[in-house]
Structure formats: C-alpha cells, structure tokens
C-alpha cells in the first residue's frame, strides 16, 4: 500500500481497529423493544414500538406490516447546537436505515400494521448512522419480532492514502491536512454475510474498495459479538 501522510491515528488505534464498544438491551421499560449502542464517544439509542395498527389507513399494506424508521440527533449531541426536527440528512439516514433493516425483518405475519423504530443520538462523534443501525437491530430483536438474522454496521474510510476502520469525528471532518476523506458505511447481515447497505461519500479506487469491504466484514464480526453478548446477558431482564 502507498504510504500517505496519515500513518498514525489520532487516538492511537490500529488502522483496522474499532473503537471500544458497549451495548445494552432493554433500556426503555415502556417500549416493546429497546437498545443502546456506543462506540467511542458516539452513542445511539433505539426504541421499537409495535406492531400496531397503522393510521391513516391508506398507508396500510394488506400483505405485510411496514417498517418506519425515525433517526434524529439530539440538539446537544455535537458542539454546535443542532436545530431539532427533521432535516435533509436525518431523513436520508432514516430511509437508508429502513432499507437496511427491512432486508432481515419479516413482517409478513402482521398485515396492516406498522413497526416504528426511533433512533436518537444523544452524543455524536462520527459514525452515528452505523451506531444507530446496530442499536436498531438489537432493539428489533429485543421486541421479539421475526428476523431472518441480525445486521451489524461499520463505517470504513480513507484518509489521504490510508484505509481506516471506524472513523471518529477528528478523522472524518477535522483532519484537513489531506484531501477530503472518504467515508463508506457498510451494513452486513450476520448469517449470510450479505451487504444490506452500502454508501459512499468521496472517492476511492476499485482495488481499494475491495479492501474496504474486507475490512468492513472483519469489523462487523467484532460488532456482532458485542450485539449478541448484550442480547444474551439480559438474564431474562425482560421489560414492561
């Protein structure tokens, strides 16, 4: 690989090392399912409600239940206050999360209903959409909904000429010595190892892209382990 100027990571991690992760399930007692997921300083909370009857009726699907995802960053999640409410970015992330989760979720047993997933980011340090998807997958499982498998998500990026896993905010937007960084969020299914979501922001060559996918897959295995541990160690601490 070509040596670039970014040879050492800001927080001392290895290039393919993810930030320390913690995950917890059942954090919201009134919800049907809930989970939190944290990587480094990025925190995500996901809450699942449903299946419940969908209103207005014309949105209902008579063949299957539908999934509705709502992603939002809390006003205090970053240094400058974010104006609360939907914006272009949050609408996009809601939509892509919905697509990624829909590929594993099976709501055919609940026609005319909706499952709502609310993702909130109380603290952001880049990689919020992947943290949100990780939390949402756990929350959906916790809600007892039929899923073919789990999903895990990771962001892989390129800084100058170096491929880096799980970028933090410094690497994503503050490291300006090199050309604008590339960011590739990847969502991987747990069993079939298929890609459920792939986005690309920036430039990357084909051989490098293949390496990115490999690095992402490796990182997703670690994340899946954290998700599974969180779900298995609730010791029947079911909610409600």
């Amino acid at each position, binding site marked *: 690989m070509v040596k670039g100027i970014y040879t050492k990571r800001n927080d001392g991690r290895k290039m393919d090392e993810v930030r320390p992760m913690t995950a917890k399930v*059942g954090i919201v007692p009134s919800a*049907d*399912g809930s989970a939190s997921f944290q990587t480094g300083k990025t925190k995500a909370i996901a809450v699942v409600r*449903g*299946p*419940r*009857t969908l209103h207005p009726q014309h949105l209902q699907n008579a063949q299957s*239940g539908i999934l509705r995802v709502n992603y939002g960053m809390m006003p205090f999640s970053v240094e400058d206050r974010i104006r609360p409410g939907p914006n272009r970015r949050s609408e996009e992330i809601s939509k892509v999360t919905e697509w990624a989760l829909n590929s*594993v979720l*099976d709501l055919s*047993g*609940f*026609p*005319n*209903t909706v499952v709502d997933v609310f993702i909130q980011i109380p603290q952001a340090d880049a990689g919020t959409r992947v943290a949100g998807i990780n939390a949402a997958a756990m929350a959906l*499982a*916790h*809600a*007892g*909904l*039929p*899923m*073919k*498998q*789990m999903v895990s998500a990771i962001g892989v990026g390129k800084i100058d000429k170096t491929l880096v896993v799980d970028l933090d905010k410094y690497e994503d937007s503050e490291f300006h010595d090199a050309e604008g960084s590339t960011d590739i969020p990847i969502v991987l*299914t*747990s*069993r079939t190892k298929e890609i459920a979501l792939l986005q690309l922001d920036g430039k990357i060559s084909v051989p490098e892209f293949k390496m990115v996918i490999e690095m992402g897959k490796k990182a997703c295995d670690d994340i899946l382990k954290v*998700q*599974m541990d969180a*779900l*298995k160690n*609730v*010791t*029947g*601490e*079911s*909610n*409600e």
Partner: protein
Amino acid sequence: MVKEKRQIVVPGETIVSGKEFLPGDGAYRDGDDIVASRYGIANIFEKHVRVVPVSGAYYPRRGNTIIGTIVDITFNGWLIDFGGAQNAFLPVAEVPRYVNKNEMAEFLDFGESVIVKVWDVKSRGVDASMKMRGFGKIDGGMIIAIGPNKVPRVIGREGSMVKLIKGATGCDVTVGQNGKVWIHGKDTDSEVATRKIVEFIADNATIVGLTEKVEKFIKELGLKVDVEIVKEDTDKE
C-alpha cells in the same frame, strides 16, 4: 439422541445442526442448520426446535385468555382492543345470551372491559369468544397492566401463585395472557393489597425462589398465607 436444553438465542444464530430436527415457532431451516428467527429461549424437545420469546409485544395464540376494552361496535359484533397488533373481534353469536342487534350497546358499550378467549388467530386479526365459564363483561374491581412477559410468573406453576394470592386476600384474580390482570374482591382494601402483591411479583419476575419471597411479602402486608381456600376458577391455562 434426545436433547433438552435451554439457551438464549439471537436471530440468525444456529440453534442446532442436523437433518433430523424440525423447526417450529421462531425457527427456520437453512441447509442442515436450524436457525432462530426470533430472540428468545430455544426449546429443543426431542426433535422439535422452537424459540419462546422472552420480551416484546404480546402475540395472541389460540386458547389464550385476554382482557381488553370495547373500541368499536359493528353490525354483528364488537371490536376489542387488547394491546396486540390488531383488534380482536367478538361476534354476537359468541356471546352467551341473546343480544338484539339494534341494541348491542346495551350489552357491551364502548370502553367497557371484557374477559374473552382467543378463538382463532388469523393473519388478519383475532376472533374472540365469551361462551365459556369465567368469561364475560368485567363489572367492578380493578384492572392492572403488568406486561405479557410477566404473566407466567404471576400465574405460577399450574396456577400456584394465583392460588397463593387468592388464599391470602380472598380476591378473585384473573390473569390475561396479554399482560392485564383483573382483581375483584369484597372491599377496596383487599383489592389494593392484591394489587400490591401482583405488582411485587411483576417487579421481581426474574428472581429465583419467587414463591417464598411472595409469601414473605404477604406476611409483611399483615395478611395470612392460606393456601387452603382454593376455589376452582378459569384463570389458568
């Protein structure tokens, strides 16, 4: 080989491998593997593999007792909201007495609570029946919500916990599988005591040796643990 093992499984996880196993509720087959499609406790009974959910919303099953409220009156029945994905339908024909179709609200009006049996679960909804003993309109007492996942603990093994509560307070306790409990007694004091006990069980649903703890709690309330008064009722499955 006969296997009986209990383990918590996550969707996508292989529960067991082998062509001889059959996937049941919450499991599917992928090649040789039986894979969980739901989060819960895997139950392997002989060759039958199923996953029992430990959390989440209530999914009605045939034969369940549910407690709900009337939300709509149609020309041939009532719609009951019981906290599930869809409403349950109670046809006029499934009511134990003659109801004039022009005066259906006389028998069951909006907002009134009922105990019904799940007669059939279809993908489009739930059919309910009221035609057996122990089911009907709720009159008096109080309904508390404990959540569907706590229900097995409140009922206890073969209804032992319910018997314990009844013996201590003299109140009728009917547990709906949808996580609602109807308490009905002679006076409000005993109903409040019963409510406290049920909530205690729900709060400590994960504890081992719950019965002893509940007995202690009942004594703390100044009541006697008396398992003798066992009146046969319809609250257990």
